[in-house]
């Protein structure tokens, strides 16, 4: 399995995947800095971090997962590499499991990058717009824990998007699912059912009701593991992964 994971990472060399993984948290950090500079009222570091995390989970995370899963799947769909891969003496499910692990790792890495970039964005905002000082101190542990819960809650979203990206040779169906899901999430933000909607689950980590937040994260985490397992079973049974 290690060899398959290693080969998945090797395929991503010089691809757009790494650019995407660098750009997504950077854009959130930049936007946070700009919003801080534009803010009239004073604010605190915890509020700044929560606002940035909301921006990440609400829009950037679902769209990045959509793009990332498509890119990871297209690495093999594009050149029709499955004929070669599936003829090798490697159990088929390992290819799909390796892709899922790689995507999960990259999303986790982006979350870590965001934790690192947020204080930099705050300091940059303060420096570029004197008078827009953030009070208190940046809570590394709190922000890290918040983004970790968002990551755990995003596993269902990752599983669904990756399944769609692997299942279809064309990038259009997973893109439509991703954009549609994100769009519906905007409308469903305040609804009770939002805690079960994959594209909205990560945002629920911010819910003021701790029960709702915990439930949403559990749905995302365990639902993601279950959906990932179903994906492996479904894909491994197919003669050809994509239609």
């Amino acid at each position, binding site marked *: 399995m290690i060899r398959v994971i290693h080969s998945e990472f090797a395929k991503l060399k010089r691809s757009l995947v790494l650019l995407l993984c660098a750009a997504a948290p950077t854009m959130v950090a930049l936007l946070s800095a700009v919003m801080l500079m534009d803010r009239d009222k004073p604010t605190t570091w915890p509020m700044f971090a929560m606002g940035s995390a909301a921006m990440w989970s609400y829009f950037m995370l679902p769209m990045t997962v959509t793009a990332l899963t498509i890119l990871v799947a297209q690495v093999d769909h594009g050149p*029709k590499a499955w004929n070669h891969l*599936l003829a*090798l003496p490697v159990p088929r499910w390992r290819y799909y499991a390796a892709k899922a692990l790689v995507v999960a790792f990259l999303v986790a890495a982006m979350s870590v990058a965001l934790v690192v970039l947020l204080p930099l964005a705050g300091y940059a905002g303060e420096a570029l717009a004197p008078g827009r000082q953030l009070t208190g101190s940046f809570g590394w542990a709190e922000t890290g824990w918040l983004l970790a819960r968002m990551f755990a809650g995003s596993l269902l979203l990752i599983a669904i998007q990756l399944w769609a990206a692997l299942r279809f040779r064309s990038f259009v169906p997973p893109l439509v699912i991703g954009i549609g899901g994100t769009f519906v999430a905007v409308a469903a933000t305040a609804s009770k059912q939002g805690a079960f909607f994959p594209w909205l689950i990560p945002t629920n980590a911010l819910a003021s009701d701790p029960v709702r937040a915990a439930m949403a994260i559990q749905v995302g985490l365990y639902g993601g593991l279950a959906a990932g397992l179903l994906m492996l079973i479904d894909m491994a049974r197919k003669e050809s992964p994509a239609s």
Partner: protein
Amino acid sequence: MTAAIETTNLARRFGRQVAVDGIDLDVPERCVYGFLGQNGAGKTTTIRLLLGLLKPTAGSVRIFGIDVGRRRIEAARLIGALVETPCHYDHLTGRENLAITCRLLGAPKTEVDRVLETVDLLHAADRRVGGYSLGMRQRLGVARALIGRPKLLLLDEPTNGLDPAGIVDMRGLIGSLPERDGVTVFVSSHILAEIDQTATHVGLMHGGRLVLQAPVDSLRLAQAKTVRLKVDRPDDTLALLRSMDIAASRQGTDEVVIDPSCAAVAASEIAVINFLLVERGIRVSGLEVREPSLEEIFIRTIGSGFAPAAAPPPLALAA
């Protein structure tokens, strides 16, 4: 001796369409097996069935005695394959592409240089594959199939896109593998002349069926030879041959060809024919006894329809 490939009543349907219809392949070890057929005859589907990429509708596949349906991974360890157009990661170099397969197979890294050298691609190993010509991609595909020193090599139209020199090199490589490395090569093509020069055994697919399968030597022996006479009086020659119950036809101004479908003409009879022609004052300036090519044998079997032997292959771009 265990057969390298053995299929029993192997069949595959796609909906109502029968792509492969109950074929019984028998490929001995250490041979070059030419798998021939027109486009759409079922060659690629058969190769995909052999690799376990498709599940058969009926029948079974055994690779060196291993049932592919039940023990695919074990069988796949013995096979290197090039299926259809070789597909590579264009954003990676040739070396990086091969390294991925090497890693997946658990083969040593030194394999990369070995196979690159075998297909004469070392000079372009560190260039991105996106800049490779079609011929170079094809050679990289063959190199990839050779990683891990497989016992069986399945090559689907391996000379596609190669320039004439590349085709000659590929023929040489394919022909040398059984003796050099003990590899069995199963090579599909729709160009008969290509297989004619390398294969020791052939199988002919037509309409999803295996209509012919035999060692090339025995196939040629079983077929009548063509006898071509160059004479100054072809009409008199035809009359003489007819009087001997030998069917023949005139070709051009001075040639007479004995019909190969008529009973095989023995060497002694050819000498007699020559003697009688000379005795009647007919000048014989040429007498050629020729074994039939695979193309002629197969056209006799299934009628015409193969790609012309003389069709020039598309030229590859300069490396």
